[in-house]
């Protein structure tokens, strides 16, 4: 079989030639050093750029970055304008986005990685899903804003419009009357679009504290009654009320309207592909033999996922999620479509309340012509960056603390 044994290569028996043929180690080490330095300096450029950016922003904004700035509402006057509702709006968004996107993203990743079907046509469904996710990651966020506007805010006008929602829970409407002596009387009405109440004598009314009151209604020409106890609760028949509402913490409506929930759902769409991909990568990094070990002991697929695979993947999933959230917190474009630039002086009180967010408020200030507003915009950016850095720090911490060797 071994027809011929090859001759030992001549060079191996000829030390002189061997020596002559050696490529220069110095030369190779030089190239090594050159490329190492190129890589390091290019990496350094990004750090320098970030530092320049931070310095510039900080220089512009540090004077107006005060405690009142953080705790007061925006104002048409730049010197008293604050960031508080925007910060709280972003916090609300963040909590909601996290609660919405994490389960959906992780569940999708588990479906794709851990429940791969054996059957061919289901496998095709899987690959379509996979392709879809990859494509979704490339969709510009403005487009998601459009989707959010039609799908969440107005729901294709199927359930009324956002001004007159078809279904509402946890809200009460009142017509508000002022008596001549500046007392406020509230009359409950059924829905936001019922006609205005015309005062009549058997009408049920409340004080703003919720105390029931019998009103005294007099004709337009009648004399105003004497005596404080009667005159305070007297209204004329032609009084015109103002419609107000009182929302409880669980207020919910369909369609969702321009509230925090719509914003959060839209941002969820923006970051879902990121969370899905990160979770998939994290699950894929769990060695296959760990799964086989669990299956081999008679665990079901779900038990394997829940007890073995998912715990091992949690650091990776969390890191990806936090980085995705820090993307969500900085997004302005989709929120611009949902919330618009409106003057919001209170933080949201429930998931349907109108809101503003940090990037929106910054955009609002930055587009104004006055230089004072540019300063507070810079202060806002510093706050936003601080929050982002804080999130990234958490991500790094989690990665370092919980990532343990898996094999």
């Amino acid at each position, binding site marked *: *079989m*071994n027809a011929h*044994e*090859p*001759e*030992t*290569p*001549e*060079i*191996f028996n000829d030390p002189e030639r*061997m020596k002559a*043929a*050696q*490529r220069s*180690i110095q030369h*190779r*080490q030089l190239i090594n050093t050159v490329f190492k330095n190129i890589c390091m300096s290019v990496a350094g450029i990004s750090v320098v750029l970030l530092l320049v950016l931070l310095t510039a922003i900080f220089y512009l904004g540090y004077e107006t970055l005060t405690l009142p700035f953080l705790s007061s509402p925006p104002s048409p006057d730049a010197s008293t304008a604050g960031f508080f509702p925007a910060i709280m709006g972003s916090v609300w968004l963040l909590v909601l986005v996290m609660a919405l996107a994490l389960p959906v993203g992780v569940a999708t990743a588990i479906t794709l990685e851990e429940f791969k079907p054996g059957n061919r046509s289901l496998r095709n469904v899987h690959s379509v899903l996979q392709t879809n996710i990859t494509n979704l990651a490339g969709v510009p966020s403005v487009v998601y804003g459009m989707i959010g506007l039609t799908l969440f805010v107005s729901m294709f006008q199927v359930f009324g419009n956002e001004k007159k929602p078809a279904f509402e829970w946890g809200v009460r409407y009142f017509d508000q009357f002022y008596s001549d002596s500046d007392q406020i009387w509230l009359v409950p009405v059924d829905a936001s679009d019922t006609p205005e109440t015309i005062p009549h004598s058997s009408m049920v009314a409340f004080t703003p504290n919720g105390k029931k009151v019998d009103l005294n209604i007099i004709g337009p020409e009648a004399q105003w009654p004497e005596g404080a106890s009667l005159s305070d609760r007297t209204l004329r028949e032609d009084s015109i009320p103002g419609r107000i509402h009182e929302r409880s913490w669980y207020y919910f409506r369909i369609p969702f309207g321009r509230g925090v929930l719509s914003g959060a759902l839209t941002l969820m769409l923006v970051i879902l592909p990121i969370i899905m991909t990160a979770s998939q990568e994290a699950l894929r990094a769990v060695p296959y033999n760990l799964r086989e070990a669990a299956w081999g002991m008679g665990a079901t697929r779900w038990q394997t996922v829940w007890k073995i695979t998912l715990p091992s993947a949690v650091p990776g999933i969390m890191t990806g999620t936090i980085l995705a959230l820090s993307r969500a917190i900085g997004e302005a474009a989709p929120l611009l479509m949902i919330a618009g630039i409106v003057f919001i002086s209170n933080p949201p009180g429930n998931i349907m309340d109108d809101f503003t967010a940090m990037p929106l408020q910054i955009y609002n200030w930055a587009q104004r012509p006055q230089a004072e507003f540019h300063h507070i915009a810079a202060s806002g950016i510093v706050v936003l960056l601080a929050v982002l850095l804080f999130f990234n720090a958490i991500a790094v911490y989690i990665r370092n603390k919980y990532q343990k060797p898996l094999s």
Partner: protein
Amino acid sequence: MKSLQTSMENNSVIREKNPSAIHISQFDAWYDRYHALKNINIDIPEKQVTAFIGPSGCGKSTLLRWMNRINDSIFKARAEGTLTIHGQDILSTKTDVVALRRRVGIVFQKPNPFPKSIFENIAFGIRMHLNVSKKEVGDIVEWSLYKAGLWDEVKDRLKESALSLSGGQQQRLCIARAMALAPEVLLMDEPCSALDPIATAKIEDLIHQLRERYTVVIVTHNMQQATRVSDYTAFMYLGEMIEFGTSDQMFMSPNDQRTEDYITGKFG
């Protein structure tokens, strides 16, 4: 202490018989604070096969990995003492590890061929180190594959991916790859632990032939393998070099009680 003396005596006997290729004295190694190797003294003879045996975690691999400074890349690993190969101080910071690793090749526990063709796996190293003609590269590839006993199996599929080979073939490819650089010393870290008996037998044959040309140092868990392939055997235990001698002497009449216990299977 007694065992250290006997091992020293053995050392000098061995040095008279064969010139030493690797000289190690008062060698200590740490992983961070863990003292992995304690006062190792050994002279590994030239153009012989020396086997390192001992229970898991006793430091065999660590010692091997310091011989060509692969352990450099492990964070917080450090070593002190004397370790010279043909007179060159290996641990010196001035030692060029790139040049060193051509002279001191290493084969790892699991076969780790590059995801390239069989030919390229071997040619990669040759082109990296030697300025030779295309034909000569081919000659060296053929010769090293032949020496590794792989030529007949792969001569018609040199262009195919090395990953298409079986585990045993991959490991022989890795040995061929190391041989092609004409090293002086070939280090093998449990080269057969992932292989079946047939592949193991082929590699043992190969190791046996290798000592015509190279000084071979092999770490093994398999004592039969040590008796089969090695001329000299060193027994290590808990980071210490317990005994070193010719394989015949080590396995027939060990000096140290611990060596005897280990090779008769009383522990480890």
